[in-house]
């Protein structure tokens, strides 16, 4: 058993990222799930260590237990397998806003050193280089979930010194900002990438590399980051996926039709 990591089957960096994200979800907790990597990670968690994970999709399906990965936040199977389906205003007002959701999963087109997220626009708002889908549920997920986990592939394009547009507030410009803004959740507690895991420094709130995935070097992570990335004194190596996790993940993604490409962030 001590050599489990060494024996772990080879996996892709996306698989590494998804399995790591799934492990961030506690059994019995409530999770606000977006389509794409968050949904894959949540469904993996529910089929491995967290069978009691309670998944909410913003379409109003509370406690959905889909047998395949949904292609959209409004797939029919989510409604069919949910404990109940409520209206969209109810999801946001009665479930998300009062802080009933433990974990919110978010994607990002850009993220800065304080975990602030852009999913709106690259470049100037009035004359955009790339117009992105926009906010969706993200601003209030980031504000009101007890904690937020961000899943995003790491690159200098995505990990920027300063986001072009703050769609969702992470830790603002540092300590005390969330409190000043009246945001009641803890904000991003983990950013899980294909290279490693970043967590806000408890003192400075700056995202700090706390774990690198097996086979990845700190230098590689720093090179994929658009700011001078801090590294934890207590840097760990992310435990590799175990064979069961990988088998379940591959079975899940294998059952998913090809139109689902897993790159849609919060939906």
């Amino acid at each position: 058993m001590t050599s489990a990591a060494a024996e772990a089957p080879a996996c892709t960096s996306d698989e590494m990222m998804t399995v790591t994200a799934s492990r961030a979800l506690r059994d019995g907790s409530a999770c606000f799930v977006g389509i794409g990597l968050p949904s894959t990670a949540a469904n993996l968690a529910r089929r491995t260590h967290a069978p009691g994970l309670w998944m909410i999709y913003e379409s109003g399906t509370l406690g959905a237990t889909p047998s395949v990965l949904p292609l959209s936040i409004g797939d029919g199977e989510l409604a069919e397998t949910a404990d109940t389906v409520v209206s969209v205003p109810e999801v946001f007002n009665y479930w998300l806003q009062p802080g009933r959701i433990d974990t919110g999963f978010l994607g990002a087109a850009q993220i800065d050193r304080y975990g602030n997220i852009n999913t709106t626009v690259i470049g100037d708002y009035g004359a955009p280089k790339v117009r992105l889908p926009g906010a969706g549920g993200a601003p209030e997920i980031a504000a009101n979930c007890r904690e937020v986990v961000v899943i995003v592939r790491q690159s200098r394009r995505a990990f920027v010194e300063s986001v072009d547009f703050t769609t969702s507030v992470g830790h603002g410009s540092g300590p005390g900002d969330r409190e000043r803004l009246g945001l009641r959740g803890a904000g991003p507690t983990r950013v899980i990438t294909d290279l490693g895991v970043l967590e806000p420094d408890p003192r400075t709130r700056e995202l700090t590399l706390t774990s690198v995935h097996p086979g990845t070097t700190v230098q590689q992570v720093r090179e994929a980051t658009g700011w001078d990335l801090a590294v934890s004194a207590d840097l760990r190596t992310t435990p590799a996926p175990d064979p069961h996790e990988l088998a379940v993940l591959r079975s899940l993604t294998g059952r998913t039709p090809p139109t689902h490409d897993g790159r849609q962030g919060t939906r």
Partner: protein
Amino acid sequence: MLVPLDEGVRELVRDGDTVALEGFTHLIPVEAGHEIIRQGIRDLTLVRMTPDVVYDRMIGAGCARKLVFSWGGNPGVGSLHRFRDAVAGGWPAPLEIEEHSHAGMANRYVAGASGLPFAVLRGYTGTDLVGRTPNVKAISCPFTGEELTAVPALNPDVAIVHAQRADRAGNVQMWGITGVQKEAVLASSRALVTVEEVVDELEPVPGQVLLPSRVVTAVSVVPGGARPSYTHGYYVRDNDAYQAWDAISRDRERFAEWLRTEIHGLPPAREGSAAKESA
């Protein structure tokens, strides 16, 4: 009450109107959107939480002057290319945008349905959405002094939604994921509902939302009217069509050809050999 779709659109939707074709992945009133394109209606302010391919088509066809929304994308696929081209390229016409979060849009409809001028929520704070529209303001709780966010009511001229069925009196029944459609209908001055079928009696269904006929202006029977989205209990989502839209919509000419053949039923313009297969 029961009218053909072309008549319903003609009577309810006017140039310059604010129109909400709502639907949350499920029950999207796609055929009604196509009819708006077909009738050449212009200068619309389109409202929707999740504009997807039908709004991409309407924008590309030049129906819209402005879009009020919270998430614009092709669900499960990626971007809306006609939307992007209108925003970044001004084609076929400049598109003004006003964007919100889902929570904000949902509450704007709730306020509209409730006859209130605004709604209060915990949202937007600290984001750059705040500076981009006058329609997000701070408000203080008169009891605790706590600062929260206010958004104004949405009251479209017309709401258009799709539902499973209606009875002959015009009562409408939908179930499955029903999104924000009830609020959109109640918030609007007029409402057009396309349905899969008309039945004598609306047998109650678990999870149903019933729209009483007195808040519905017109019902049109349009089987398959939500395709390529789906109608719970009738047909499933055509995921390939969403995927295919990505390629069609990337290119202005290919999109124009699609409009010509698929919406206007004209023969293909570019391929001589295909000209005989008119739609």
